[in-house]
């Protein structure tokens, strides 16, 4: 598995190395934040709103405050001087730290209780008496977009903005594109097919609930904060900004982080509030979410409703694609909130070249904030596009693979082919990738098998979908578009950083600006440095996640770490190599140009018997009196990599499903993926990322539903009501890849964290709709739980029409 199919592998590294982080994790000795116990540490529980929308009439904490072991109860007035929560893109209503006179979603924090014990804090939270005056909530997206009722009565509209293209920022161009599509629709020989679909809200649900421990040292005037965050530097900046401190007075440490998937890519109000409590009480303070907290008060993802329309001729030539949608931002903006659909806009037309008008309005509702959840805007965009293409293919009776192939951006337009909004992409070869998938999967045989099973009366379907992703963020010039992280006091570009130090014993310490939440940075980065220096992987230690020691980096998200921070580390390693060559040349009395690094040391080309070790080289570096005159001591280097573009991975996926016509139960029989993430550093880790990504996309397609009830209730408080896929729900996956290296970074890597998720939901739904198509079903909304599928089958049978 995982071998290049039909193309040569050009990996710079490309070998499997067992993960360096695993020995601690499989022995239970990894340190997660909730494992931390500091002397005198206090515990926090929050009092949360049971209403989606209500006036807060009064908060009476007197009973709670009188309980044994309760140290403090804080409400909005206590923290008003700290302002609202920091936000990267503060469009719309930004979240207050604690709700004041109104609550605007279920689970919004109204008061914070601090007590000696975890259990005691929870007891006291239950004893805080809050009187609410319930108000009607705005939950439905279309209703919200109509402004029939306002979510925030001090705002003029629930609609914050709409992301629209056509040509990016060119209103005349957008109007011209709309006219082109209208003209195509008016032609006699074209058909238009529309589907209206819900891309339901999802709860990210990493297995580790978020946890934070803040420790204010009054003597130094400094915070030390451990948090399960994807963005340690941004958290430090956000705390510094909020409390008026310098960056040197806030040290944030992200130790082991038990999954993130985007939801730990926010600075949360609880992170700020435990800092406040620690400062007030002079004790370390811990908050660890319950799963209930995580469900209602950690950011959600997706939450769109949209209509997608394809117009084309009956031979499969697509002449226009339109998306008209509404995206749910929830009640408050947090980190990226309104920017998430913007990421979808970039890839709105996917791998294809046809006139596209794409518009998604961002609206407030009385629900939890939405923000980045694995894929973040791109799964939604790919879902609508690929569902609509399938619907069009079915309408005209052309094989869905042929329709896609006919409309691809041709390979010869790369590098630099333009997206529908005119943004240049790095590299791509879509037809080769699709053909490799179809050949590997045995597409024609699978179709024949499906048809044979269908003839037996079984509901069997094949689903195909392609995707292109934008990730590896990514152009450092994004700073100039307003993504500067200035509100986090770290006005960095979307650059990466790495520091490589060879120590006197010849081992290497690598300190990186980004940190993992399961992606295996300690292994991948060791491979990058090992590859450049020839120091064995086991002699390289990779550190991350401590802002006191790691160079500034903005975090692991958007499938960016290897492409950006990995490239920085590669360049830092090259600087060290260059200096080491000078040092080895001095030791071997040769020219640096003739030095070859091999076998854990260096020698002069042609004389491998006269080898100096890395320890010999480094020892010289740390004894400056032995160095040639003018050469600086030490053997370390830092590099910053500023990417000129994002990266644009792509792929195509195929699913085979069978639906039980009596129960509506969907069985995923086979899942075959052909992904292209450019060069591969560690195939084992890359495949693992795809596996997990697929499970989350398939989870959306088949199981997960985070939508609120019409009254604003969220009946998804546990894994019983919000079922993640279990081991019994999923098949083994069949993974393959093509390799089209990027030209925007020296490693040629594009990123793989989100691809599996971006490619998969529509693949499964296309397969299920294909399975039900003999009954006349053309659409079923996700998640495809048995009841919903059964209802679609019944409706089709009784009406003889579309569900």
């Amino acid at each position, binding site marked *: 598995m995982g071998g290049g199919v039909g193309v040569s592998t050009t990996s710079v590294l490309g*070998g499997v190395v067992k993960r360096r982080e695993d020995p601690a994790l499989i022995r*239970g000795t990894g340190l997660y934040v909730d494992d931390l116990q500091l002397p005198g540490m206090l515990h926090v529980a929050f009092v949360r709103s049971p209403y989606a929308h209500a006036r807060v009439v009064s908060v009476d904490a007197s009973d709670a405050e009188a309980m044994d072991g309760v140290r403090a109860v804080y409400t909005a007035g206590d923290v008003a001087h700290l302002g609202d929560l920091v936000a990267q893109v503060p469009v719309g209503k930004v979240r207050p730290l604690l709700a004041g006179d109104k609550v605007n979603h279920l689970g919004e924090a109204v008061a914070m209780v601090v007590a000696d014990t975890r259990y005691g804090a929870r007891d006291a939270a239950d004893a805080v008496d809050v009187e609410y005056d319930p108000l009607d909530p705005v939950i439905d997206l279309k209703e919200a977009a109509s402004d029939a009722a306002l979510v925030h009565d001090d705002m003029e509209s629930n609609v914050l903005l709409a992301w629209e293209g056509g040509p990016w920022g060119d209103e005349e161009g957008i109007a011209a594109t709309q006219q082109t599509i209208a003209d195509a629709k008016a032609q006699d020989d074209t058909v238009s097919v529309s589907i209206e679909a819900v891309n339901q809200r999802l709860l990210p649900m990493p297995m580790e609930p978020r946890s934070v421990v803040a420790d204010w040292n009054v003597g130094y005037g400094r915070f030390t904060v451990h948090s399960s965050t994807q963005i340690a530097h941004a958290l430090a900046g956000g705390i510094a900004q909020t409390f008026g401190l310098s960056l040197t007075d806030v040290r944030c440490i992200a130790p082991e982080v*038990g999954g993130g998937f985007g939801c730990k890519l926010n600075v949360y109000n609880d992170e700020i509030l435990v800092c406040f409590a620690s400062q007030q009480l002079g004790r370390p303070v811990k908050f660890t979410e319950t799963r209930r907290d995580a469900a209602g008060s950690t950011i959600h993802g997706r939450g769109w409703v949209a209509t997608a329309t394809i117009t084309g001729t009956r031979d499969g030539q697509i002449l226009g694609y339109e998306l008209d949608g509404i995206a749910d931002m929830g009640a408050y903006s947090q980190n990226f909130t309104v920017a998430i659909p913007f990421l979808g806009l970039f890839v709105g037309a996917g791998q294809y070249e046809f006139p596209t008008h794409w518009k998604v309005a961002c609206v407030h509702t009385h629900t939890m904030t939405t923000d980045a959840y694995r894929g973040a805007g791109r799964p939604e965009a790919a879902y609508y596009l690929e569902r609509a293409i399938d619907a069009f293919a079915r309408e005209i009776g052309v094989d869905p693979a042929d329709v896609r192939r006919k409309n691809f951006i041709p390979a010869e337009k790369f590098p630099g082919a333009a997206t529908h909004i005119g943004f240049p992409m790095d590299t791509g070869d879509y037809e080769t990738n699709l053909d490799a998938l179809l050949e590997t999967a045995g597409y024609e045989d699978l179709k024949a098998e499906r048809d044979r099973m269908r003839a037996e009366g079984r509901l069997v379907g094949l689903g195909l979908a392609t995707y292109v992703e934008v990730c590896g963020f990514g152009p450092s010039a994004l700073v100039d578009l307003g993504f500067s992280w200035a509100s986090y006091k770290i006005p960095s570009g979307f650059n990466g950083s790495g520091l490589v130090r060879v120590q006197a014993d010849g081992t290497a310490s690598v300190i990186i600006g980004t940190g993992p939440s399961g992606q295996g940075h300690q292994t991948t980065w060791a491979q990058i440095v090992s590859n450049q220096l020839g120091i064995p992987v086991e002699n390289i230690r990779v550190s991350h996640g401590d802002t006191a020691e790691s160079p500034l980096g903005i975090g692991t998200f958007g499938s960016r770490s290897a492409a950006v921070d990995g490239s920085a580390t590669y360049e830092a390693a090259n600087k060290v190599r260059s200096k080491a060559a000078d040092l080895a040349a001095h030791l071997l009395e040769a020219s640096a140009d003739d030095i070859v690094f091999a076998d854990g040391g260096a020698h002069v080309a042609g004389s491998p018997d006269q080898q100096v070790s890395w320890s010999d080289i480094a020892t010289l570096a740390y004894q400056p009196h032995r160095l040639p005159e003018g050469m600086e001591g030490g053997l370390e280097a830092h590099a910053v990599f500023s990417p000129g573009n994002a990266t644009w991975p792509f792929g195509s996926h195929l699913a085979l499903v069978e639906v039980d016509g009596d129960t509506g139960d969907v069985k995923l029989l086979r899942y075959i993926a052909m992904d292209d993430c450019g060069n591969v550093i560690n195939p084992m880790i890359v495949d693992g990322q795809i596996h997990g990504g697929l499970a989350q996309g398939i989870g959306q397609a088949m199981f997960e539903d985070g939508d609120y009830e019409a009254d604003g209730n969220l009946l998804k408080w546990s894994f019983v009501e919000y079922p993640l896929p279990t081991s019994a729900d999923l098949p083994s996956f069949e993974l393959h890849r093509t390799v089209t290296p990027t030209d925007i970074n020296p490693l040629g890597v594009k990123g793989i964290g989100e691809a599996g998720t971006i490619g998969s939901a529509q693949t499964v739904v296309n397969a299920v709709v294909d399975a039900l198509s003999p009954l006349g079903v053309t659409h079923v909304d996700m998640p495809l739980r048995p009841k919903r599928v059964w209802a679609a089958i019944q409706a089709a049978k009784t009406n003889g029409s579309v569900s």
Partner: protein
Amino acid sequence: MHVSLTVNGQRAVTDVEPRTLLVHLLREELGLTGTHVGCDTSYCGACTVILDGKTVKSCTMLAVQAQGAEVTTIEGLAANGDLHPVQEGFWERHGLQCGFCTPGMIMSAVGLLSENGSPSEGEIRHGLEGNLCRCTGYHNIVRAVEYAAAKMRGEEPPAPEWEEGSA
């Protein structure tokens, strides 16, 4: 309340509030933080330990219910420091990513293999259904358990799905 039990071969005697969950005794009183808490409803399995030979979710038991019991946590699984074949399988076959579900998943797999030494893929998948993982899609967890089962039978484990690399 007074509770005494044996954890990883060591006797533990302590006083706890009657409502203290076993997982909190292990984590907060005994400092065995390898056992994790991932939910409030005994659903996710991150807290799985072996108690008197059976796998249990330690968040679903009161500490006092473990009076007199022998408990093995992830920290006690490696005998004399050598990895248990299931731990080895998870490392060899990339059966973990963030590692948070891993201790519970490993303990459940140990329990599964103690009852069925040659499980099919379907039996592994059903046997681990009570342990959630959000990272791996379970694919490599199944491979890890297949690896461990073969090792425990004294057989050569199935080859990995990736080409053995040179790096």
